[in-house]
């Protein structure tokens, strides 16, 4: 019997067109906290989905040995029976049910289909004591904070006799205090012999609690560091996470940067539901003509919220701050006013916020600027066909014709349709939120080329991206955001991924 509770060996998982995991191996010792680090899209979550049976056996290649036996989980309940419990970043709690009901959801304390409430509540209380949560088991989940909800999830895991606990970025949405508490709990579990896998972007936390660290990059395990054998070096981890070849992934461009076109001053935005919770705080930012400006930061750092709040207050509650366009204060309080001032925002979630999926390419492209193809409110259908066809040709959108529904296009082509829509509105300032998310390398290059063309025409572009190489390869200047604030401003030519990471963390 080895001292490993889990050995994943040679795991390879492919999605159509993408190799998400390439021969990854991961060994977790009995009773240790094993950290898994890597950039967004490095394959951490995919690896954990393979482990927990969300991707069933046969869907991937490679072997999983758990507690000495080879495992072939077909669904998540199989892995839970074996004592492997995963807690996702997005909590899977039912908001209007009580804490106790949530803990025993799917595992109800029952006799012949009738719930034994006494047993449910007393057991729930025991579990809450174990995780140190001071709430009544009868309280509704929606009435307690995110930090406490996280603890409910852990209590739920404990109720399933967990042997190996997997936490996917558990502290991403927690404040300092709650994070501290959670990490202490993990150390407590370790004493009781429960092993954990911790996925996190916060290297200081990882250093604090981890016994081993495995670094993933582009679907491959780069190395595993043993923290017990001495000091680990943060620089070393970061280099492992980001180090990759940067040549020829971005088209060349000569920057011709002009005067300031957009200035955001003292911009503060509150959360739409939690009054007083600042999502964007005191942001000051300038954008120049002909410039590609990058905003780096993790998901949830306030990047999207900043962009959407500037674009017609589409997110949150405006608390303070002004926007100046070409030196004059501009009213951007509604989307149509923002568009009128020449601002366009291309969303990070094209399916939810960008496309009319059930409608044609043509109707999508002209939506934001229908007046352009209409006279006296009546649409000139022929003109509309000409305009949308010209975008399809220009951007090489692969489709059967402009009457094809947006639903049936590939991700890259959908993104080009959304871009076309906004370029048809002829903006001076274009905000692109994760413009290359979920699209393949070739389409990425085409999108980069379009961005370069735009700035050469004298437009100004803001690119929000989680991919640091993209930010570095594409932008002239970079702001780094973290927890709603600007934590750094860098000149792209002199910046490095390590430096950006330092500002993020």
């Amino acid at each position: 019997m080895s001292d490993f509770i889990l050995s994943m060996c040679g795991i390879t998982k492919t999605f159509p067109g993408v190799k998400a995991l390439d021969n990854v191996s991961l060994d977790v010792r009995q009773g240790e906290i094993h950290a898994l680090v890597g950039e967004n899209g490095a394959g951490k979550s995919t690896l954990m989905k393979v482990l927990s049976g969300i991707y069933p056996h046969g869907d991937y290649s490679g072997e999983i040995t758990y507690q000495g036996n080879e495992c072939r989980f077909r669904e998540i309940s199989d892995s839970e029976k074996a004592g492997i419990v995963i807690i996702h970043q997005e909590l899977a709690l039912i908001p209007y049910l009580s804490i106790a009901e949530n803990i025993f959801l799917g595992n109800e304390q029952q006799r012949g289909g009738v719930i034994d409430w006494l047993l449910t509540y007393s057991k729930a209380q025991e579990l809450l004591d174990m995780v140190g949560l001071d709430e009544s088991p009868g309280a509704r989940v929606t009435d307690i904070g995110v930090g406490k909800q996280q603890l409910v999830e852990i209590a739920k895991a404990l109720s399933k006799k967990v042997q190996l606990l997997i936490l996917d970025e558990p502290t991403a949405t927690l404040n300092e205090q709650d994070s501290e508490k959670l990490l202490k709990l993990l150390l407590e579990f370790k004493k009781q012999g429960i092993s954990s896998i911790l996925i996190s972007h916060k290297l200081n936390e990882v250093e604090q609690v981890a016994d081993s660290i495995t670094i993933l990059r582009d679907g491959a395990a780069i190395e595993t560091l043993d923290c017990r054998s001495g000091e680990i070096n943060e620089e070393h981890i970061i280099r492992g996470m980001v180090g990759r070849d940067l040549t020829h992934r971005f088209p060349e461009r000569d920057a011709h940067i002009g005067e300031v076109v957009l200035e955001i001053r003292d911009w503060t935005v509150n959360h739409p539901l939690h009054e007083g919770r600042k999502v964007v705080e005191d942001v000051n930012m300038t954008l120049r003509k002909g410039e590609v400006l990058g905003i780096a930061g993790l998901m949830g750092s306030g990047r999207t919220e900043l962009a959407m709040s500037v674009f017609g207050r589409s997110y949150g509650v405006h608390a303070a701050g002004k926007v100046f366009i070409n030196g004059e204060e501009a009213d951007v309080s509604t989307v149509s006013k923002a568009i009128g001032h020449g601002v366009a925002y291309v969303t990070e979630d094209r399916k939810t916020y960008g496309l009319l999926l059930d409608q044609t390419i043509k109707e999508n492209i002209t939506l934001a600027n229908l007046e352009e193809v209409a006279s006296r409110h009546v649409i000139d259908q022929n003109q509309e066909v000409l305009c949308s066809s010209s975008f399809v040709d220009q951007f090489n959108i692969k489709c059967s014709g402009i009457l094809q529904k947006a639903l049936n296009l590939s991700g890259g082509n959908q993104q080009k349709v959304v871009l076309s829509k906004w370029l048809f509105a002829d903006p001076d300032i274009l905000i692109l939120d994760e413009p290359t998310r979920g699209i393949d390398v070739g389409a990425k290059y085409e999108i980069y080329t379009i961005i370069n063309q735009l700035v050469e025409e004298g437009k100004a572009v803001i690119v929000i991206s989680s991919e640091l190489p993209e930010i570095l390869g594409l932008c002239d200047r970079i702001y780094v955001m973290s927890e709603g604030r600007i934590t750094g401003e860098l000149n792209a030519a002199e910046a490095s991924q390590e430096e950006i990471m330092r500002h993020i963390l």
Partner: protein
Amino acid sequence: MSSIIEAFKNNIRQYSMLIALIAIMLFFQVLTGGILLKPLNITNLVLQNSYILIMAIGMLLVIVAGHIDLSVGSIVAFIGATSAVMMVNLHINVGVTIVACLLLGALIGAWQGFWVAYIKIPSFIVTLAGMLVFRGLTLVMLQGASVGPFPKAFQKISSGFIPDFFGGKDVHITTMVIAVCFLLAIVFVELRSRSKKMALGFAVSPKPVLIFKLLGISAAVLYLCSLLASYKGLPNVLVVLFSLTVLYAFITTQTVTGRRIFALGGNEQAAKLSGVKTRRLTLLTFANLGLLSALAGLVFAARLNVATPKAGTSFELDVIAACFIGGASASGGVGTVIGALIGALVMGVMNNGMSIMGIGIDWQQAIKGMVLLFAVFFDVYNKSKN
């Protein structure tokens, strides 16, 4: 030749609902021993279904915008009662009453639209409340009794026919003149659109298809109009209905506002982020349906020549069913005015045909329900195949 067959196939798919309607008409024509398409019955068919058709147009816009309105039947009753109280009890002028009732309808629609668009209460709940409220207010206003009869001028809305300026004896000549003018207009619009497209180098449907289509439309229009002309000519209601159809078909397919309603129903978030004023537009679609429901209420009251508390009961179900039979999507963003009208006619012809055959109201309901289910199933099945 194969390209022509291909074009025919494409067009047939497009007109499948129309073909279904024609099939149903022929079916009942045979079963009723030729009564269905008798001039008198055709006129009746139009008059019987006019209020459903009028409301189907408005409902279509609401459904395309992603909502539903259950209150239209109650609005029909409420407006009918209002008009009766104004004209019969208070002796207010017919013209003033009509205008006031239409405005009241629009206001009721706007009121419900306000709750849906600005307070974000689901339309199902808002209009369910409206259904109860306006049915109740109708009873209050009529004090449980029927009020009538209406002035002659008002009755003419439903029972009148356009005058014959040419004084034809057996045939209503004006009706035929209007039909011919209408056909000439269609031919002109089709040819102009075709030549514009050809000038821009777009693909156009081959000439035989165009000719076939125009001949088909001409035959249908001339046939129906000659039937009507051999009775009393065009009913006033049909003229109103026809004008509304052209107007709303134009709005939905050719104007900026129409397109934005489709965008709103297709993806409200995306529409909002594209600068569409989604709340105002939602309110507008409800106000519009309120207006059309008020018109339907007036037509219905004029037809019965009395306002009753029970008027318009379960009209909302017929109207909603018409939209869905006509291919509108329950999740919004998809649907056509013509489709909704064909849907309403399918229901109307079935009602009429089964009544003539002496089938009881019980079986009629059951059969209509199954038709609704199968029509939507057919639609869903077709979509999944593509």
